[in-house]
Every structure is written in structure tokens, then in C-alpha cells.
């Protein structure tokens, strides 16, 4: 017999004998890999599609010129077009426009309209040319026509030649759907108009959003870009396609990475299950291995055998996981969308593509995780001296040795150290490493905790006469904690992560709720369905609104989008009246502020969001040059405010400063406080009766709050699903471990039945063991989870999303989950124990192996 066939016999024999346990380990790995892989697939698909869609809009342009502000003067266009090195300059005006009948405060309910010069676009992005009806060529230049992508037509329920009403400032505008954008990407909601028509009809005369450039052949892009950037000065950004990709990538990177990390958690839980399955298998087969060693199998052969088993398990589980993950991804895209509940990739209908490299990567991760889970028990099996193992009653020596506390303590120490390290590439790499080390260390210490806790308990109960069942349970938990703890590895990992996520999400939610209360203090918020960079309300309309009856106070907001760094998404500028004496009345400030009294005379104050600090290095007390109106002006950063709405940064300045510097008196939003006795409904009716009333977007702050929280919950829905999956895997692991241990303990039960334990007593003993262990596990899981939540809240979130939050522990919810876990684990143990009371155990006392 060759050693290969021996290896196969052993593997097949072992697996056949313990199908359930192998299956659970397999499922754990498969589910872990599947979750991670499907999330990766969905995210990648959504991201690729989103970036392809963005690229689609700019066609084959070599470069883009944008303003710091969202819109800039068109005089740049002829200047660029006349540059010797420029082959084509393609001017574009882009607006997100509200559609009549689709009014909503949410940005994804707006229609993106691109204004193009078809003759220029034809040379750079021909896909953007609308297809008019036969013989209606000039529709592409007409001032009352619009071309819609198929997805936009479907969304708006219009066909060619239908009318479409949209808001242009305070007016409605009726456009004729002149045709389709047949080459728009699937799901891409997009409209195209003639650029001249658009400037006119949407009151954007003289403004452009960007100019795309195609350079003459042979022009050095880098040199040209540098020269152009210098000539254009700081008001404009020159970006290459790669910069734009980076920008799109930056937009969702933190979100994608964090979701991937969560997905890996499921896999991580699987690793613990593999470990416990393999470790138990080693214990069970201790004598078998000893016999093999006696018969002449070398240590290395034995080690190889165990590792081979791990590889088989890992490969099989990973393959299963890849197929499952692909299936999940396809179905998720089919039935949901690519957003996974978030809104990072709006208006995108991605397709899943099989990428062999990613598949191999996830296969590798699954395999590695399995091997890591197998290696420690395998080494243990190889190390054992056969003579010792052949002796009865030596099963436990195996695991006791694993419990040296040092590796665990080193892990915990490492975790502590990593929490102090800064992010890498703006990603909380060390934060996640700290979480991993914390988990590993915590779980590795579990046997010690178990032994310590139960021996303490035993000692305390020593004086009392306790029943046989209790005595047996306590003795087992005290004296053989490793096996017991091993069963809990998976559940401990998943439960502590669940606790961590629950605390983090609830803290986030509570913080946001609180924050919404602070940032939405007024009764009503009124804005125009706008269009571009102009504030929708001019002075007369502002007065009309303020002059309505029953209004106590009106605060006016001017908001603008600015680009401060071409590789980053836009930041938001808010200009609004801010209570100079106590800005806290207006803004949700952190503690990092300069007292208003200590400001020198004549400086203009600026309050920046936390993201500005992390991304742009703004510090309190610092003087910064900031573009307002046509040029840069000096502001002093006087405070930092929490902003959960814009992770890419936002600043607030006094409206008076803004209006003085820019000469722009228009505003975007009016916050309205009603007088006592005035109902919100009446106020809304009054506003609707204004001659521009129908164009107003009027939101109650309560509705906005509810909507914000709804969006919040939706974006975390995937998180909940992932965590639930992790816990289910953990429970499966408990079931499998318990049932394996029950099998391994058949002789023990057989003897106990002989000496007079009833079936019920044995079941009670198993339930008590399971329950007590789980109770301890959940307690430890809670402590571990709480620590992890601190890392999530105070390290991972600020580093990824640049916002901080206050800690909030959802006690009742956690208790309920813990109770549920306790009951599930006890029930699982009971079900596994049914074998323990079958007739076979009685015969087990006679089988020595």
C-alpha cells in the first residue's frame, strides 16, 4: 500500500465517519467565501459600472478642465479651443434637474442633463449624441428638445415625442423628448440637450461645467497638463482620465473596503470552525494516530496527512463558496441593485463579470483560512508521543497545551498597539488588524477564562451539597475547558462582532438622530428644484417667503460645490447666518473650537467639518485661503463640526461674508420657523400659493429626519445580513462541535448510564454544559465586542469616513440577542445530546477503540 492510498483511506474514512462535522466546516468555509466573494463581485461590478458610466460621459477625452466651483465662465472654451496642442475642446454643461412629478429632496431623484455641442461631442463622446426621429436632424440643435437614455425614459414613463416637464429655477419648462440615447449604459439615467439651449432654458447663460480636451497626436500629456494648469491658475483644475478614475474611486473607497472587511468576518468565523473541527478530530483520532505512529508512520507523514485534509476541506469549501458567491451576486444584482442599500453608485445597472484573478484570490483566502485552522491541531497530532496517546484517558492533554497564554496576550498587546497607529492610504488598516488580533487573543484565552471561572465557581460551591449533574458539569467545565471552549470559538467570534457592529451602528444612528435634530432645527425647509450653481431664490423671492403670514424667522442658506483637490470629490460650502456669540446654537460643533471672544477683529470665521481636518489638514486657529466668489479669501478656522451627511468635506461661513465677497445674493434654501399657532400644513399651502410656489421643494424637518434615518437603515441592511450570517455560522459550529464531542464522549455517557444516570439527567447535563458555556461565551463576546466597537467607533469610522460619534450601547437589544444565543446554544447542545442517550452508548463501554 502506498502512502498516498493510506492518506486517502484515512481521509475518506474520517470524513465518512463524521459527515456532519465535515459538512458544517465545509459550509462555514463556503458561506464565508461566498459572502466575501459576492460582496466583492457586487461592489466591483457596481464600481466598474459607475466608473464606466462616468467615463462614458467623457468619452475619449485626454483631459478635463473643471472649475473649482461647479460652474465656470464659458470664455475659457474658445481660449482652450485655440490652443495649438488641442485637437478638440468639448464644452459641457451638466445639471441635475428636478422633474415635475418626481419632486424629491433626494439627489437620486433628479435627472442628469448634459448640455453638449454635438459637433464637438461627436469627436470625443459620440455616444452622447441623441438619435432623433428620421428627418428631424435639427432636433439635436433645437432649444425645446431633450434626448433621454432608455433607463431615463423608463423611469420618467415617457416615449419619443412625449412632453417632459422639468423645473428650471422657479419655472417649469416643457421639453419635447426628441429621441433616445441608444448607446447609454444599461440603467444609466441620462438626458442630453443642446448646450446653447440648455444655457438659455435653465438660466445658465455663460456657464460651463467642464471642458474636455483631446490633444493633438504627439503632444506630451504630462507637460501639457502642467503648462495648462499653470496658465489657468488656481481657479481651474486640469485632470487626466486617471485622475477622474481616482476621484470616482475615492468617492466610494471607504465604503467598499469596509464592506469587504465585514464580509471577511464571516470567513474569519469560518476559520474558527475549521480549527475546532480539526482539533476535535485530532482528539478523537489520537489513538488512531498513535497506532499509526507505532506502525511506522513518521511525524512528517502524519502532519502531511492532517494538512492534506485541511487542503481538501479548504479547496472544496472555497470552490463551493465561489459558486455560491457568484450566484448570490448575480441574484442580488438581478433583484436588488448594485448599491447594496447604499447610494454610492446611483443610476447604475451593473453586470457581474467573472474575473479569474479575483476568484483565485478568494479561493486562496478560503484555503489559507482553512489551513490556518488546521495547522495547530495538525502539529499537535504530530507532536504527541504515541505511547502516551495509546493510554486511555489522555484525550485532554492535547488541548491543554494549546492554552499557553502568551500568544494570546501578545495578540492583545498587539491589538492595543495597533489602535494607536495612523491610517495607511486613508484606510484604517491597523484598526482592522487590531480587531483581528483582539478576536484571536480573546478566543485563545477563552479556555483559560472558562477554567478559571468554573474552578472559581466550583470552589465557591464546594461547601454546598450539589447534585451529581451540577457536579459533573462543573467538573467538566473546570477541568476540560479547552474542548468546551473550542466549540465556542466560532460563536464567540461571530457574537463579539455582532455586538461590535450593533454598538457601532446604534451609536452611529443615535448620533445621527441627535445630529439631525441639531442641523434641522426649523419647522420647514424650502428650496427650489435647482439647477446648477445658482441659488434658486433671488432677493425678491426671499422677501416673498419671509413676508408670508405666521412665520417667525427665516434663515437663508447658500450652498455651493467646490473642488479643492482634483483627485477628490467636491466639498460643500455653506453660507448661512451663524450665531457669532455662540455658534453651538447653529452648528453641531465638537469641542475643538476657538471662543468667539478670542478672535481678532476683522477676520472671517469658518467652521469646517471633521472630514476637512482629515482630508485637507485644516486645523482650528489656522488661517486658510478659500475660494469664495471669483477669488481666494482668507478665513480663520474657528471650529469643527460633525457632518454625517458629506464624508468628502464641508465648510460653513457667514452668509454676510459670502454675499460681500461674491456679490451673489441668491440663496438655495430657506429654513423657516413658524409662529406659535401656525400649522405646518397652512404654511405649506401659503407657500404653494406664491407665484413660484409649484417649483418649491418644501420639506418638514420631521420628514427629512425620517427619510435620513430610513436611508441610514437601508445602507446598513447589508451589515445586518452579514452579521446574522456570521452568527448562524457560529451556531452551526456550536452544533457541530457539540455533536462531535458527544460522539467522542460516548463511553463517558455509557458509563454514566451504567452507574445510574437517567437519560434526562444526561440531557440536563449537556444542556447545562452548553448553556453555561454559552453564557460565559456571550459574556466574553460582549466584552470583546464592546472593545471592538470602540475600535470601530473611534478608529475605523473616523479614519474611513472622517466622522466621530458618541458611544451608545443598545443594552436591551444586546440582552435579547444574548438570550436568544443562550437558548439556541442550549437547544443545539440538547439536540446533539440525543445521540448521548441512545442505546449505542451502552455498548460503547465495551469498545475500547
Amino acid at each position, binding site marked *: 500500500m502506498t502512502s498516498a492510498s493510506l492518506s486517502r483511506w484515512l481521509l475518506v474514512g474520517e470524513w465518512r465517519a463524521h459527515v456532519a462535522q465535515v459538512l458544517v466546516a465545509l459550509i462555514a468555509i463556503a458561506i464565508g467565501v461566498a459572502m466575501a466573494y459576492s460582496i466583492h463581485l457586487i461592489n466591483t461590478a457596481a464600481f466598474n459600472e459607475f466608473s464606466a458610466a462616468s467615463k462614458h460621459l467623457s468619452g475619449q477625452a485626454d483631459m478635463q478642465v473643471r472649475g473649482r466651483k461647479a460652474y465656470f465662465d*464659458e470664455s475659457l*472654451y*474658445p481660449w482652450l*479651443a*485655440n490652443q495649438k496642442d488641442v485637437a478638440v475642446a468639448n*464644452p459641457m454643461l451638466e445639471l441635475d434637474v428636478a422633474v415635475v412629478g418626481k419632486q424629491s429632496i433626494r439627489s437620486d431623484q433628479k435627472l442628469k442633463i448634459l448640455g453638449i*455641442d454635438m*459637433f*464637438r461631442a*461627436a469627436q470625443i463622446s459620440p455616444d452622447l*449624441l441623441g438619435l*432623433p426621429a*428620421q*428627418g*428631424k*436632424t*435639427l432636433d*439635436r*440643435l*433645437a*432649444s425645446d428638445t431633450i434626448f433621454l437614455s432608455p433607463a431615463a425614459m423608463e423611469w420618467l414613463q415617457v416615449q419619443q415625442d412625449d412632453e417632459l416637464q422639468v423645473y428650471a429655477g422657479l419655472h417649469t419648462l416643457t421639453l419635447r423628448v426628441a429621441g433616445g440615447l441608444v448607446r447609454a449604459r444599461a440603467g444609466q439615467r441620462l438626458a442630453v440637450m*443642446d*448646450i*446653447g*439651449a440648455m*444655457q*438659455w432654458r435653465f438660466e445658465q*447663460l*455663460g456657464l460651463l461645467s467642464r471642458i474636455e480636451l483631446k490633444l493633438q*497626436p504627439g503632444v506630451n500629456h504630462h507637460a501639457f497638463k502642467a503648462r495648462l494648469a499653470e496658465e489657468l491658475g488656481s481657479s481651474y483644475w486640469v485632470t487626466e482620465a486617471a485622475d477622474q478614475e481616482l476621484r470616482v474611486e475615492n468617492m466610494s473607497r471607504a465604503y467598499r473596503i469596509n464592506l469587504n472587511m465585514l464580509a471577511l468576518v464571516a470567513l474569519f468565523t469560518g476559520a474558527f470552525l475549521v480549527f475546532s473541527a480539526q482539533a476535535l478530530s485530532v482528539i478523537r483520532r489520537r489513538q488512531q494516530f498513535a497506532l499509526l505512529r507505532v506502525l511506522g508512520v513518521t511525524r512528517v507523514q502524519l502532519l502531511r496527512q492532517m494538512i492534506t485534509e485541511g487542503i481538501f476541506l479548504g479547496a472544496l469549501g472555497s470552490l463551493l463558496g465561489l459558486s455560491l458567491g457568484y450566484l448570490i451576486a448575480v441574484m442580488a444584482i438581478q433583484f436588488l441593485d448594485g448599491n447594496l442599500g447604499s447610494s454610492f453608485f446611483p443610476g447604475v445597472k451593473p453586470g457581474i463579470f467573472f474575473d479569474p484573478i479575483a476568484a483565485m484570490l478568494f479561493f486562496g483566502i478560503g484555503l489559507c483560512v482553512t489551513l490556518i485552522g488546521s495547522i495547530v491541531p495538525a502539529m499537535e497530532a504530530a507532536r504527541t508521543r504515541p505511547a502516551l496517546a495509546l493510554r486511555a484517558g489522555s484525550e485532554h492533554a492535547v488541548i491543554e497545551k494549546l492554552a499557553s497564554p502568551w500568544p494570546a496576550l501578545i495578540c492583545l498587546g498587539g491589538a492595543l498597539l495597533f489602535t494607536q497607529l495612523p491610517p495607511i492610504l486613508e484606510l484604517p488598516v491597523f484598526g482592522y488588524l487590531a480587531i483581528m488580533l483582539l478576536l484571536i487573543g480573546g478566543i485563545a484565552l477563552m479556555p483559560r477564562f472558562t477554567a478559571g471561572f468554573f474552578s472559581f465557581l466550583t470552589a465557591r460551591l464546594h461547601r454546598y451539597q450539589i447534585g451529581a449533574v451540577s457536579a459533573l458539569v462543573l467538573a467538566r467545565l473546570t477541568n476540560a475547558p479547552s474542548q468546551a471552549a473550542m466549540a465556542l470559538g466560532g460563536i464567540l467570534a461571530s457574537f463579539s462582532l455582532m455586538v461590535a457592529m450593533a454598538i457601532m451602528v446604534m451609536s452611529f444612528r443615535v448620533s445621527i438622530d441627535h445630529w439631525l435634530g441639531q442641523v434641522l432645527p426649523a419647522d420647514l425647509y424650502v428650496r427650489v428644484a435647482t439647477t446648477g450653481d445658482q441659488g434658486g431664490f433671488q432677493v425678491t423671492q426671499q422677501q416673498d417667503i419671509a413676508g408670508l403670514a405666521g412665520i417667525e424667522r427665516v434663515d437663508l442658506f447658500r450652498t455651493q460645490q467646490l473642488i479643492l483637490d482634483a483627485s477628490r470629490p467636491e466639498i460643500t460650502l455653506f453660507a448661512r447666518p451663524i450665531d457669532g456669540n455662540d455658534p453651538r446654537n447653529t452648528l453641531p460643533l465638537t469641542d475643538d473650537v476657538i471662543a468667539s471672544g478670542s478672535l481678532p477683529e476683522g477676520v472671517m470665521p469658518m467652521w469646517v467639518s471633521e472630514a476637512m481636518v482629515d482630508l485637507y489638514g485644516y486645523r482650528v486657529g489656522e488661517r486658510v485661503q478659500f475660494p469664495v466668489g471669483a477669488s481666494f479669501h482668507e478665513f480663520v478656522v474657528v471650529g469643527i463640526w460633525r457632518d454625517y451627511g458629506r464624508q468628502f468635506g464641508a465648510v460653513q461661513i457667514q452668509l454676510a461674508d459670502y454675499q460681500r465677497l461674491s456679490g451673489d445674493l441668491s440663496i438655495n434654501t430657506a429654513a423657516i420657523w413658524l409662529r406659535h399657532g401656525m400649522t405646518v400644513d397652512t404654511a405649506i399651502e401659503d407657500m404653494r400659493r406664491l407665484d413660484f410656489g409649484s417649483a418649491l421643494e418644501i420639506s418638514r424637518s420631521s420628514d427629512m429626519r425620517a427619510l435620513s434615518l430610513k436611508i441610514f437603515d437601508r445602507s446598513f441592511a447589508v451589515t445586518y445580513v452579514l452579521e446574522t450570517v456570521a452568527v448562524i455560522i457560529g451556531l452551526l459550529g456550536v452544533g457541530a462541535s457539540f455533536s462531535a464531542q458527544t460522539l467522542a464522549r460516548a463511553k463517558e455517557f455509557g458509563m454514566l448510564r451504567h452507574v445510574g444516570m437517567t437519560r434526562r439527567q444526561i440531557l440536563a447535563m449537556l444542556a447545562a454544559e452548553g448553556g453555561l458555556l454559552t453564557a460565559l461565551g456571550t459574556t466574553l463576546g460582549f466584552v470583546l465586542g464592546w472593545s471592538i466597537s470602540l475600535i470601530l467607533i473611534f478608529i475605523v469610522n473616523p479614519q474611513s469616513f472622517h466622522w466621530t460619534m458618541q458611544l451608545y450601547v443598545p443594552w436591551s437589544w444586546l440582552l435579547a440577542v444574548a438570550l436568544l444565543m443562550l437558548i439556541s446554544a442550549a437547544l443545539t447542545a440538547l439536540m446533539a445530546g440525543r445521540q448521548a442517550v441512545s442505546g449505542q452508548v451502552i455498548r460503547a463501554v465495551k469498545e475500547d477503540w
Partner: protein
Amino acid sequence: MKMIQKRGKFEYAKFMLTWLLLITFLSMETLADEPMTRLRPVVPDHHLSFPHDYGAHQDFRIEWWYITGWLESGDNKPLGFQVTFFRYATDQNHDNPSHFAAKYLIIAHLALSDPSAGKLMHQEKTLREGFGLAYAKQGNTDVKLDDWYLVREDNGRYQVDMRADEFGLQLSLAPTQAVLLQGDEGFSRKGPKPEQASYYYSEPHLRVTGTVFRNNKPVAVNGSAWLDHEWSTAYLDSDADGWDWVGANLDDGSALMAFQIRGKNGGKVWAYAALRDPSGEVRFFNPDQVEFTPLRTWKSPHTEAVYPVAMHIRTDDIEWRLTPMLDDQELDSRQSTGAVYWEGAVTLTKNQQPAGRGYLELTGYVRPLAL
């Protein structure tokens, strides 16, 4: 342009435009159906006045400056060239204050026939007028589209500069003869209805000097060219299917222009010819006196269209034979603007005697794709 008749030109221009807009022939009808227009019709008994009429006429829908000619480089190899600038009034956006408002479009074609290359090199551009990037000015010929331009200097000399990726030209064209008013003092009919007409004058025998760029290498050239300037608002007869046009500088200093508008039934809808002798005497031929007869056809490998590239033309008692410099002088720009026609340098015999060189234009030979 070279197609002198109003109708031919209109149709041609319209064709060009619609092709440019990626559409097929079928769009002719729609423009004709335009209900309300601010554009002026072409009327008889209108007196052209120069230099004003060298410039653009914004009140008319379509206008073009069209130059064709034969060039010779140092190696004595002949080259043919064609330069056209169109101005097209969209008749839209009158009230639009935007600088991008698409009121006028400028379209330009550049083609070079090079027997050594064995085919026609050509390029087209279109742009809306505005920002100084594209315009057709009034008062004198001054047309620009990005870096392409055609300007008439006060002394009557034209300057053309048009460079494409692989080829281009930079020419100076000096008049040697008086302006030739086509039709009735510049009122040129294109069809049986009187409103189917254009204002049309030609400048034959322009003396050309300058540089041609082939593969970005400059070659000094000289030669002789023909300029047409034509503007109109009305359109071809709805029965028209295409046209054949020729303009030729004859060796003895005479100038010939002839065209026929073909009907959908293959017959002649309208025809016209003018022959000016070196002394300046012009002989006009009415539709019945002008007859085009294909002598040889060439099937385009690009579009499968069959063109009568060698043509027999009778103007009353005179027999003309046209022989192409190359067979493949088809402008197939379906990949860009979509226009497809044959526009080629030809040599002429008059009553079997070598007589001169000119350009032949054949349109309407590509069937619209049946979709």
C-alpha cells in the same frame, strides 16, 4: 458649389448637412416642410453687388464657397483639390441669447486627389458659429472653422489654409478673369418652379500658388482653380434624386459650367450650361440643350455605389468628354459625417480635341440604406 444649378446645390447642401448630422437622404423633406421661416427667398431681377456679395448672406438658409482645381508640383505630377465652406442657417434659436445658440452652422470639406496615392484623401468638419471659432462674415469672403479658413483679400486674392491629420493645403488664389454671373445675372434656376433657384457666381481661372502637405511634408505647387459662391433658401424639386455637375477651366481661357438635376425616374429634371470664351462672351444653354450621357461607370468598393465617372456632355452643338484623373475619387465619410458623393478631377475634350481640366461632381448615387 460646383453644381451650379440652384437646385443641385440646394440638394447637395442639404444632403451634406443631413449627412453630416448622421442622417440619410430622407431628411430633405423635413427641412422643406419648415412652416415658419425668417429666411428670405431667392427672387429674380436681383442685382448682385460686390464686394458685399462676396461675403455671407445670413438671411438665406444655405450658402457655400466652393473651390476646385488642378495643381502641379515640381515633379509635374498633377493633383486635384477641393475646398468647400458651407454656412447653414438652422432657422432656430432666434431668441436664444446663449453664445452657443445654434443659429448658423459652418461646415467645411477638404479633399485632395493624388494619383500616386490612388485615392482621394478627404476630411470634413462642422461647427456652430460662435466664439470666433467658426464664422462666415458679411462684407467680403471670410470664413473660418477652427484652424481652417478661406479669406478674400481686398485685392481679390483668396487665401486658403486647411490642414488635416495626414494632409492639407495652404494656397493663394489670384483672379485672372472677371466674375462670371450664372443664370440670369446671378439668378440661377434649379428646377421647373421659379422659387427653386439660387444666387450664383463663379470665378474661373484662378491662378494658384502655395503648398500642399502630404504625410505632413510640404510640397510647393501651382495650378489653376475654379470658385463658386452660391446662396439660397429654397430647395430642390421633390422629384430630384441627385445631380451631375462639371466646372472646367479650358486651356484657351474659356470656362465651362454645366449641370443636370436627375429625377427619381432617372430622367432630367433640369439642366443648365454656360460657356464663357476668352473674350468674356458668355453663351448660355437651356435645359433642352444640355445632355449628360454616361460613358463608363465605376463601382465603389467602399459603398457599392455605381458612378458614371466618364461622362459625355452635349451642350447644343458642342460635344464634351470627361475622363477622370482617378476612378476612386469618392468621398466616403460615413465614419464621420456620413456624406457620400463622387467629386473628382477630370480632363475634358471638346469635340474630340483636348480642351482643359475641371471637376466633376456626382451625387445621389448611393442608395439610402433600407432599414
